Each structure stands twice: as C-alpha cells, then as structure tokens.
C-alpha cells in the first residue's frame, strides 16, 4: 500500500469530519427548535448520561411547567404527566416534523381538565382558542396555540351579569344553553320556589334593566319580603301586606286555609262556619265568591220554603245561628205572631211534638185543627152537636186535656147531685169486654146500670130494665124515693121500726150474695114463724 497516499486520504477525511462535526446531531430539529441546532446546544436538551430529561424541556417551556405544578391543563392529566416529554414531542425528525401531533378530531379534551360538554362539543377549536381570550401576554402573542385559556366561563363568554353574580357561571348555567339555567337551584337562594313560581319564566320576576347602557337581568337585590313587588294587590291594601297569610304559591285562587283570616272579610266565620271546609261554600275554588246575604245562598232551605212563604221570616238567622241548626232560636213570641198562638200546654211541649210528626219537619199546616196534631181518641163517640167542626176546644182547652169545659145539661143526661162531682172519665172511659178502655159518649146510655152496678141483681127489673131512679136520687144511694107503703106490703106498726134487714136478709143465689128486697111470700109466717 502506498502509505503516503493513505495518510493523505485519512487527513482529507479528518478535515471533512471537522467540517461536518456540527452535524453530529441525528437529524434536523423542527423549525420551533431550529435555534438549538449545533453541537454546543446539545446539552440544552440532553442531560449527559440521562438522555433527555423533562426538567430540561420545562426549563424553557415554563408555561407548561406552571400548568403542571398547578395541576392544570392537558399536561397535568395523570396519563400525560407520567410520560417523558419526548415520548410525544420527539425531535431530530426534520424541520417540518409535527412535534405537536395534534388531531382536532381525536383529541380527548377531557384530559385538559375541561371536558367538552353540551354546546362546547359543537364548537370549533378556534372558537375558544383565540388570542383575545388569553390573558397571559406572552402566550397571547403565539399563533395557533391551545394554551392560555382558563376554565372560567367568562374567559371566553361575556358576563351578561356584569359581575353582579360573581364569576362562577357553572352555579347556574350548564354548557347546553346559556339561557337555560339548569344548574341553578333556586331553593338554595333566600327565596325558595314553590307552587306556581316553579312554572313562571324567570323574566317575570327578574326584570331586564338598562344599566350603564346595557340590558341586564336583575337577579340580585330583588325585594321579596312580601308579594307586592311582583304581584298587584287586588285588595288594594284592605287586607294588609302579607299575602301569604291567605294565599299560597300554588295558585292565587287557592287560599291557605290554615292561615286565612276570614274575619277580615265581610263574612267573619262564626261557630260552625269555622269548621267548614272552604270549598263547601266557595264551590270549585276559593276565589269564587259566593253570595252570603242570606243563609240559603249557601244552605239548602231545610224547611222547603215553609218559613219564607208569606215573608213570615226572611232568613234562617231568624231561627238559627252559627252555633248549630238545633236548637232553633224561634221564640214563642215569634210563634205567637203566627196563625197558631201557643198557649196552655202548647207552651210546654217541644217543637217536634207538632212539627215533626213524621220523618221531616213540618211547619206549615193545612189547618189548625187539633186533629192536625192530636189523635181523636173519641172516635165516633162525639156527635156534631158536641164536636162541631171536629173542634176539640168545644170541650178541651190547650191547658190540659183533663180540663174539660162541657155543659152536660145540653145532653140527655143532665148531671145532678153526686154526678156533678164525678170525673167525666168515670162514666165516659170504659173498659170494654176485651179489657180495652174506650171513651164512650154517644154509645153511653143514660141507664144507671151503664155506669153503676145493679147490686139488687135485677130484683127491680121492669120489663127487663131496672130504673134506679125510682128509688134513688143523684145525691146519694139512699132510697129516698122509695115508699114501702106503695109496695104490696105497707109497713105499719112495729114493722115501721124494724131494721130492713130483719125482713130482707142476704141471700146467696147463683154465687151472688145480695139482699133480697123483693119478697115473694108476704105471709107473716114467712118472717115470723122462723123466730117462733
């Protein structure tokens, strides 16, 4: 081998090696890192003996370092944080190498700590990733950067509320639609929404105001101590300011029955009305205002017009009050203004005795005959003469049935003697053969034995009829009219002094013991022989 030629060749190659020593790099850096080309810059990224350390990368990329230390952004997600920077952002693959291999379509935005939901899913990257939304001045200058945004809604969205509701939009809004505050829980405010308030559009209560030249919906500072800031007081203040004392939020037409003070109305609730359900009077809805001038505006006329006919009374309250329908307040004086004057025993009897003879009350009678109420216990025993027009008062008075004012002299049997002092019923109230007692008037004959017992056992019958009055008067039972001398045996002599029983002994005949007055044998021996 030609050694001089070989030496020259090696020297040439060594020279060339020095010329290209700058190209010890395994490949060109990307345009982003082009300034780091060159042998002297290797250790700016490489750590001798340790390849490429993340700390070297983050020394330059301080914005990423800050994000990671703040546990914020894509690079702080557990999946990314655990990786070496170069595993995603490799180098030495040429100037045009995509050192950030970012696919808009496949990027999992949730790894940034800001998951795309709702309308954010439909937004284009550049809708949010604009320099105008970036606050950091250095990052703001970069083109096509995805850094620099923060998670606050107002970093991209205009604060419609101009800071009046703080910075936490998530508290009310979600990402579906701004004008639907689905995250907002009104119950967590000082004004819990109940009833119809749940269905009311926000703007009904939260007015739009012009503030500093912009339209803003007022959410804070609304007065809600009472309802009047939003609702008109249809009562014009007459019922005070506390609507809630009567109304509930379910509906204005629904009254809070527990708190409503009916006394503030023209119809204070008294007595039984306090325990009546509202809808019993306010049919359908409490907002329905029933008539209340008359009781029958609400109440059924139990008496079916009996009282109001002829304007005897104009309203129930003449007889009843709210305490109860019973007892009636109808007074005797009022009754006495009716066509039937109460007197005597009628004053003492309960109303039902006359007015509730049957199942229902009856206050209007076709006639005022006693028999309208009273049973005619005499049946047919009274003739028209003594019971004219079926008028009991021809004999009875209202004081008592027992008080009779009857002129017996008008009858065939004038009361004389002892009969004057005898109770009527002694003669007229008889026990029938069937042991039933019955008044007897027309069927009562004037014969004494109709009432009196014939203790002589028909000894004095004359044609089958005994006329007591031949011997007796009405004064007593002594036979004052009897004249022994007009009999077939005149009393003379010692006979006139004898006791009657000497000649008229008691006799037992057919089981009856009686004194035998009518003797058959007038011979002396008929009486005297026996004593001889």
């Amino acid at each position: 081998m030609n050694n001089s030629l070989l030496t020259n060749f090696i020297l040439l190659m060594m020279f060339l090696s020095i010329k290209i020593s700058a190209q010890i790099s395994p490949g060109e850096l990307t345009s982003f890192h082009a300034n780091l080309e060159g042998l002297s810059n290797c250790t700016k990224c490489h750590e001798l003996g340790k390849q490429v350390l993340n700390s070297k990368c983050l020394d330059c990329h301080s914005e990423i370092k800050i994000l990671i230390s703040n546990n914020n952004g894509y690079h702080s997600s557990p999946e990314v944080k655990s990786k070496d920077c170069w595993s995603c952002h490799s180098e030495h693959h040429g100037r045009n190498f995509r050192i950030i291999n970012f696919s808009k379509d496949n990027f999992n935005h949730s790894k940034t700590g800001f998951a795309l939901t709702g309308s954010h899913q439909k937004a284009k990257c550049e809708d949010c990733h604009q320099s105008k939304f970036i606050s950091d001045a250095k990052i703001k200058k970069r083109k096509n950067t995805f850094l620099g945004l923060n998670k606050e809604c107002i970093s991209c969205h205009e604060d419609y509320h101009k800071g009046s509701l703080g910075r936490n939009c998530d508290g009310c809004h979600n990402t579906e639609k701004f004008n639907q505050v689905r995250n907002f829980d009104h119950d967590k405010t000082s004004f819990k929404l109940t009833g119809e308030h749940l269905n009311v559009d926000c703007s009904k209560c939260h007015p739009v105001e012009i503030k500093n030249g912009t339209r803003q919906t007022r959410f804070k500072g609304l007065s809600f101590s009472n309802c009047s800031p939003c609702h008109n007081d249809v009562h014009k203040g007459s019922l005070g300011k506390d609507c809630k004392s009567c109304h509930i939020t379910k509906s204005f037409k629904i009254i809070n029955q527990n708190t409503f003070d009916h006394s503030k109305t023209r119809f204070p609730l008294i007595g039984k009305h306090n325990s009546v359900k509202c809808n019993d009077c306010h049919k359908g809805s409490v907002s329905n205002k029933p008539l209340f001038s008359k009781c029958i505006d609400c109440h059924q006329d139990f008496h079916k017009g009996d009282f109001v006919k002829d304007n005897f009374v104009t309203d129930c309250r003449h007889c009843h009050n709210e305490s109860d329908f019973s007892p009636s307040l109808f007074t005797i004086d009022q009754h006495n203004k009716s066509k039937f004057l109460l007197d005597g025993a009628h004053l003492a009897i309960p109303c039902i005795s006359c007015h509730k003879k049957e199942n229902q009350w009856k206050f209007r009678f076709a006639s005022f005959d006693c028999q309208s109420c009273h049973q005619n216990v005499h049946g047919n025993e009274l003739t028209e003469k003594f019971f004219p027009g079926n008028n009991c008062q021809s004999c009875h008075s209202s004081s008592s049935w027992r008080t009779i004012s009857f002129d017996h002299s008008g009858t065939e049997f004038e009361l004389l003697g002892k009969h004057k002092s005898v109770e009527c019923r002694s003669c007229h109230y008889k026990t029938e053969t069937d042991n039933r007692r019955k008044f007897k008037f027309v069927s009562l004959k004037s014969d004494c034995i109709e009432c009196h017992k014939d203790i002589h056992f028909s000894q004095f019958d004359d044609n089958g009829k005994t006329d007591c009055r031949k011997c007796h008067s009405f004064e007593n039972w002594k036979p004052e009219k009897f004249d022994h001398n007009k009999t077939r045996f005149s009393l003379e002599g010692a006979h006139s002094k004898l006791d009657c029983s000497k000649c008229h002994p008691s006799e037992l005949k057919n089981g009856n013991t009686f004194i035998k007055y009518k003797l058959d044998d007038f011979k002396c021996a008929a009486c005297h022989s026996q004593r001889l």
Partner: protein
Amino acid sequence: MNKTLHRIYVGLFFLIGITVTILLAVNGYSYYSTSVEERFFHPQHNLIKPSGSLGHGFGIVGSLMMILGVSIYMIRKRSRRLFNLGYLKHWLELHIFLCTVGPILVLYHTAFKFGGIVSVSFWSMVLVVISGVAGRFIYIQIPRTIQGRELDITELMKLRNEMSDRLSSEIIFDKSLMDEFSILTSPERYKDFNLLNSIGFFVKDAIRIRKFKRRLISHMRKAGISKFRFKELKRLVEAEIILTRRIGLLRTMQKFFRYWHIAHLPFAIIMFIIMIVHIIVTIIFGYKWIF
C-alpha cells in the same frame, strides 16, 4: 474442510445474509418507507428507530460483526503464527460474511436515515463494502494456490498448455471452430484492456464466448459425444478460456488490486473512527440500549 463442508460453510453465510436482509426488510418495510417526518407516528417507531430496542441492537450487533470480521481477517492474514490456522480463503469468506451482514444490520440501524457526521461513517462503510465486492472480483481474477499465494505467469502458462494438450487429445474441432477457440485462448487479445474500456470489453468478450460455446455444443452433439464426456469437455473448454483471460489480465488485475487496497482500507478506517465517535457520543448522552 472438504468441498461439501465448504459449500455448507459458504451456503450458510449466504443463507444467513439473505435471510437477515429479507426478514428485516419485510419487518420494517412499512416503517422504512415512511417519510422521516412521519416515522415518529409509526407504530414500529419505538422498536426499530435507531435508538429503539431493536434498531439500536442492529447497530450494536452490526458494528461488532464488522469489528470482528475485520480484525480476525487482518490478524489471520498478517500473523505468521496463525499461518496454518485454516485456509486464508475461508477466513476471507468469513470476513466477507461478517462485513456484509454487519453493514446490512447497520443499514437497518440507520433506518435508512442518512445525515450528520455518522453518515460519513455509513457511506464509508458502503464504499468499503462496494470496494470489497470489487476487490473480491479482482481477487478471483488473480489465480492463487489453495493457501492463497498468487501464481506467477510461468506457472499459469504451464497450466494452460497442459489444459490445451488435454483438450486437443479429447476433442476434434472443425477448422472454423478451432480458429475461434485459438483466438479465445490467446492471452494477446487482452492487450488492449484498460480501466476505461473494461466494461465494454467484458461485455463483448462475454458475448463472443457465449456464441462460441453455443457452436461448440452444437458441434459436440453432432459428433455423438456421451453426456458425461460432453460435460467434462465443456468444463475444460470454459476453464481454458477463463484461464487464458486471467493470464491475459494478470498484470492489469494485479495493478487494480494494489489500487483497491488503497481505497478499501482507508474507508474502513474512517468508518471505524467515526463509528467510535458516534458510539461514544451516544453513550455520553445516555443511550445505552439494554444496558
């Protein structure tokens, strides 16, 4: 090593070389055919990139093979003590194997990305390989003893005359065929050969020899020569023509071979120097493969 064992020896090298080349090509075709700027996103990147677990291995194994291939051949060739340790031809074949497969592995290690200082090493390696191939061609143009010693012109002429005598006793050519064979076996016809017309010369010569062989075959068939004899005669004719060519080109080839050494070794040295720099830099920066 007998002839069969030698065939297995060489065949095994060939098989390994081809298999490694094909397997690695098939395995990494998708990656290697991807542009450099897109390779990072290729699923095989971490495996067969130059610093990948497999790619880095290619470089290390390939380099070791080259170091081994060069060093053992140089030691065997230059050390008198090892003069009897196998035939130099076989060591050369091992050197060729290791220094062919090694660069192939290094080629896959580069992932066909050629840049920076290390590319000087790579291209040096390529030149060494190419020059090696050329050297191998020149080498075989110079007839040697089995121990690798070059035969001088006298020995060669004696060999050719023996061969010519044998042929003339074996075969009877017609006149035109005999005239052509005489031209083909005349070393004087290589006088005009030089580096510039070498390719054209070889192409024309190859065509001429091919035509002659066709006429010869036709002639022998007409003469009714047995199949075995036919093959033997054909081999003898080819051997004499080749021997004549080697005699005719002997001085030229010996000159080429000297020049070849000037190219082959310095490129190898450059390759190794830069390769060592490359390895040192790699280790300094912490890329230690599996270690």
